[in-house]
């Protein structure tokens, strides 16, 4: 028999291996791989992997809800357009899509981001991570990616589905592409803006506590309360357009909407104002995150 491995007792033609102890002799991948591993497993767990069907049901339902408007529009077009000429495509321009499913995006972020940070802090595995070669920055980087990537499934994917579906059903898809190719970068930008915003803000709130329930509640409160406040104040002071920027839950949607030329007129405020407000909010959230993960803050 051939032999290998540590601690193998050998006679002339027999061998016993002590498998209770062993060293790792395989490939050692780099720090980048560690970050991607944190990102990948964080994203999968937040979507419900290895947590039973109930944990999967809610994220999947939200994703389906997010895609539903696109599916409905495409379905109507496929089934009825030829006969009756009804085409709902105009009823669902890309600039409005995110506004329509805004609540879904909010809920999705609120449910997935606490899963990324709270269990580690609560169960004490955070200290375990930081006793390995992974630095705090790398841990955060992995978790930020894990927050943003699944969010793209509700902020970006539905619009891409709609776009692709329109292409499939167009009489002259190449012509449509030539006329509307500029929509694609706008869709991409809109999707990324929302994913980054809700993801980072969600992570910031989740980093403040070890209990998921508090994180979800705090997140919703943080976003919804200023929005309600902004609405009230706008009734009192209709001309103060900057009040729209306080509406934290709809701020990114307005920002994304400004990217689409046909919707600009309907959105109060200028692009640069939204950009500024976006940077401020995401910046503050990032600072909170960094502070909560500084050395010594594992509790």
């Amino acid at each position, binding site marked *: 028999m*051939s032999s290998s491995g540590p601690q193998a007792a050998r006679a002339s033609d027999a061998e*016993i291996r002590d*498998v209770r102890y062993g060293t790792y002799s395989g490939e050692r991948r780099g720090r980048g791989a560690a970050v991607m591993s944190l990102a990948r497993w964080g994203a999968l767990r937040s979507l419900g992997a290895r947590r039973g069907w109930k944990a999967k049901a809610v994220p999947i339902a939200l994703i389906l809800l997010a895609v539903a408007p696109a599916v409905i529009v495409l379905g109507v077009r496929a089934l009825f357009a030829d006969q009756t000429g009804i085409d709902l495509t105009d009823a669902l321009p890309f600039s409005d899509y995110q506004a329509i499913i805004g609540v879904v995006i909010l809920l999705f972020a609120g449910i997935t981001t606490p899963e990324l940070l709270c269990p580690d802090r609560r169960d004490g595995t955070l200290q375990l991570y930081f006793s390995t070669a992974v630095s705090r920055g790398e841990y955060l980087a992995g978790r930020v990616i894990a927050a943003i990537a699944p969010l793209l499934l509700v902020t970006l994917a539905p619009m891409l589905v709609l776009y692709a579906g329109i292409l499939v059903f167009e009489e002259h898809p190449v012509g449509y592409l030539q006329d509307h190719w500029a929509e694609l970068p706008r869709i991409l930008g809109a999707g990324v803006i929302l994913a980054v915003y809700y993801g980072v803000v969600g992570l910031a709130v989740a980093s403040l506590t070890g209990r998921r329930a508090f994180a979800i509640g705090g997140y919703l409160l943080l976003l919804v309360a200023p929005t309600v406040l902004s609405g009230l104040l706008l009734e009192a002071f209709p001309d103060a357009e900057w009040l729209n920027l306080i509406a934290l839950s709809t701020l990114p949607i307005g920002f994304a909407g400004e990217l689409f030329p046909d919707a600009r007129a309907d959105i109060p405020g200028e692009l640069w104002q939204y950009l500024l407000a976006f940077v401020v909010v995401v910046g503050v959230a990032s600072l909170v995150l960094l502070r909560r993960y500084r050395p010594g803050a594992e509790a």
Partner: protein
Amino acid sequence: MNGEALVFEKVSRWYGDTVALADVSFALGPGVTGLLGHNGAGKSTALKLCAGFTQPSTGTVRVLGADLARNLDTYRRIGIAHDRDALWPFLTARAMVALCARLRGVRDPDAAAARALDEVGLGDVADRKLRGFSHGMRQRVKLAQALAHDPELLLLDEPLNGLDPAQRRHIVDLVVRLGEEGRTVVVSSHVLHEVERMAPRVLVLVNGHLVASGDTQAIRDLIADRPRSIRLRTDDGRGLGRELVGAGLVESVRFEDDAMVVEAGDVERLGRELPRLARDAGVRLRRVEPVDDDLESVYAYLHERARGVGR
């Protein structure tokens, strides 16, 4: 023993998070080798890897010197009896075995089928449709199709499953003969006393790890940290026992029915000194036999030792 027929090099196979085989390496040559392990230890996975039905996650598997995925021709020289029960119900036993033989390049498939079916004891039902075959008959049909093309390497997954004692004896004898003919035979089983009769060498899998390989006796010899138990039938057990303890040859003595069981750390020394000691004490030795040298004890020990690993 040269090991060229079947070579595993650091083979691991996992399914998601479940590791079916962990870093298994061995090389097998002609003769019968038993593949031992509990259900779920990785025996079926190991055989599937040998048969080319799946690929290792890491490591290499070489069957008759070749990578099966690239050298399909190697299948002419391999016979596989896998663990699934199903056969084509509308074929007769002869038709199925002949079909398999034909697909593997046998020149006269019908003669080969007849011979194989006779060898496994299905000669008189060869022309019955497989639909009505019992579990034991199906097992033997599988074995027949594995033999029909005269393969160098045989992979048998629990071949005695479902057979009655007479059939079992017949198949055990068949397997022993196949090994003596110079073929490489791998038999997986969890019925230890039968493996003991068929296979002089074993591979022991526990939770996906290969914990021991080689000749059963040699493995037992290697289990150094456990004293060997010897049963002695004598006409003055207590007297002899006193002498043995006094001479420091045994660690403990216990009396069972009409025999004495001693535990000795150094069996060789005991074997050398016992006759002299018995003669000097005037005690007649009627029977001296090792108690836990059988595969059952060896396996139990290995399994216990590796408990917790891999799960």
